[in-house]
């Protein structure tokens, strides 16, 4: 999941680093205003929870592989967007400095893709939905949809960074989008499932822990939220549109011809690729429309899975404890 050094060029790494540093600085100054002395214990503890929570392996249906929490939206829902963004940056830094997960120069890009998009962008979508759907249903639906959307948006951002790093035409952007979007649509479903589950569990056990959305003070706060929601939603939509938009270019046709022509070379990689896309037996992949088909399928499957989750969690996240309004009670 993490970008290691070597994927991105130095210019792109530095550019992403500057944007991430700006977002982090803004988050820290906002935190100092609202939390003051509580900043360190609260944000730090949230980061530690996400770090430890990522160690918990969630079994996938049939595969021997495991998924895990990413946590951007979860952190933002529980401790607010600014603390969530800083917490994700801390987690990414520790993974880099303890395990060498994620590159040192690519740290800014990692913070941008997962922390800024995950926590700040995810929170924008969450509060957008929460302002329109009342009660617990709004909280869970917002968290689920924000989790899925932010994963897709992060992968789109990575595609853009990757493409910017290799500007010499050695990369076909639509191909990259096809692979990444199909893959991350599934990862996003897992993230939405985990985030929705944890949020509805907290709502059932300790509803006082879920933050109220930041109050609507003036037009600027509302404008910022709308801009954030729009940007993340646009990134997510772009992931699904990009493979179609490039149709006019010769790239796709050339690829299709090559794929047909180099049938021998194509075959060894087929099992590798089927991990990425939704495999559809019996469809003529070589005609070039398999990209669109797999992206559309991944999009449709992902969206319907997220919608199902929204309804399911909304129904089952009723309060379980009768005395849940009695105030905070220590769990242990």
């Amino acid at each position, binding site marked *: 999941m993490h970008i*290691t050094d070597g994927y991105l060029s*130095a210019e792109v790494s530095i550019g992403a680093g500057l944007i991430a540093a700006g977002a982090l600085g803004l988050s820290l100054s906002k935190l100092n205003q609202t939390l003051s002395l509580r900043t360190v214990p609260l944000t730090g503890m949230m980061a530690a929870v996400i770090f430890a929570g990522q160690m918990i392996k969630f*079994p996938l249906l049939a595969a021997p592989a495991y998924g895990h929490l990413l946590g951007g939206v979860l952190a933002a829902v529980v401790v607010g967007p600014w603390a969530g963004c800083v917490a994700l940056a801390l987690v990414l830094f520790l993974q880099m400095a303890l395990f060498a997960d994620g590159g040192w*120069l690519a740290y800014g890009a990692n913070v941008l893709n997962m922390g800024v998009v995950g926590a700040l962008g995810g929170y924008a979508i969450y509060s957008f939905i929460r302002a329109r759907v009342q009660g617990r249903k709004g909280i869970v639906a917002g968290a689920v949809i924000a989790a899925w959307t932010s994963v897709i948006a992060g992968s789109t951002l990575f595609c853009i960074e990757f493409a910017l790093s290799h500007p010499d035409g050695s990369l076909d952007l639509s191909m990259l989008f096809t692979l990444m979007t199909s893959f991350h649509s599934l990862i996003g479903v897992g993230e939405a499932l985990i985030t929705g589950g944890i949020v509805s569990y907290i709502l059932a056990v300790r509803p006082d822990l879920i933050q109220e959305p930041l109050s609507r003070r003036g037009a600027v706060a509302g404008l910022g939220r709308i801009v954030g929601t729009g940007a993340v939603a646009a990134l997510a939509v772009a992931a699904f549109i990009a493979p179609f938009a490039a149709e006019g270019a010769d*790239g796709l046709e050339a*690829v299709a011809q090559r794929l047909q022509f180099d049938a021998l070379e194509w075959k060894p990689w087929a099992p590798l690729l089927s991990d990425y896309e939704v495999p559809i037996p019996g469809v003529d992949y070589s005609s070039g429309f398999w990209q669109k088909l797999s992206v559309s399928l991944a999009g449709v499957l992902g969206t319907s899975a997220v919608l199902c989750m929204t309804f399911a969690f909304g129904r089952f996240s009723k309060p379980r404890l009768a005395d849940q309004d009695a105030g905070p009670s220590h769990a242990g």
Partner: protein
Amino acid sequence: MQGPVMPADFLDRFSRGNTVCHRMPARLKIVLTLSVIFVSIVLPASYWPAQGCLACLVFAALSLAEIPIAYLARRILLILPLVLMTALAAPLSHGFASGWETAFGIVFRTLVAFLAALWLVNTTPFDRLLAGLCRLGMPRLFATLLAFVYRYLFVLFDELARMRTAQRARTFGPGPVKTAWKSRVQLVGTLLIRALDRAERVHGAMCARGWRGKMHSLN
């Protein structure tokens, strides 16, 4: 509360050795590693001699630090599939006719940078790494936050291990996928709730000891 206690070095296992590399000042190691990574990225992939020299340098440093080969091989095997997938995007764009050089460049540079980073984190304990980064200009607040997270990771891992032991004691096996997910969601959820309560208590304790937003250390 008794339970499994995480050993102090379970996060950075090889970083407390006593070789030349371990004794080097942290600041020097950080600057060296970052410059190796930077040079490897900035140089075009077609400069094979230079790239090869960088790789040799990294290998020499790794063997000087006496980091076990098996550990390095395991780490590389874990990241290799993802790196190969991403690198394949280039030849895939050209129907496997060209673009192999770009792909090979990505894989090679990624491995060099990854090994250099592994050398840094496995020769420098986290506290010294943090002190070195602070002297290189990392903001104090961010360093304080990192130190806090590092300290409480051990506490939370202990807590998680206790909860898993309890969960295993109550059940016979992982059960079907749905049950497994539910129990893991509750595990993370409970960890989150307990940790936020703990943050409140820790905050009180810090304030009682005169916390004014700045951490003091002996070095």
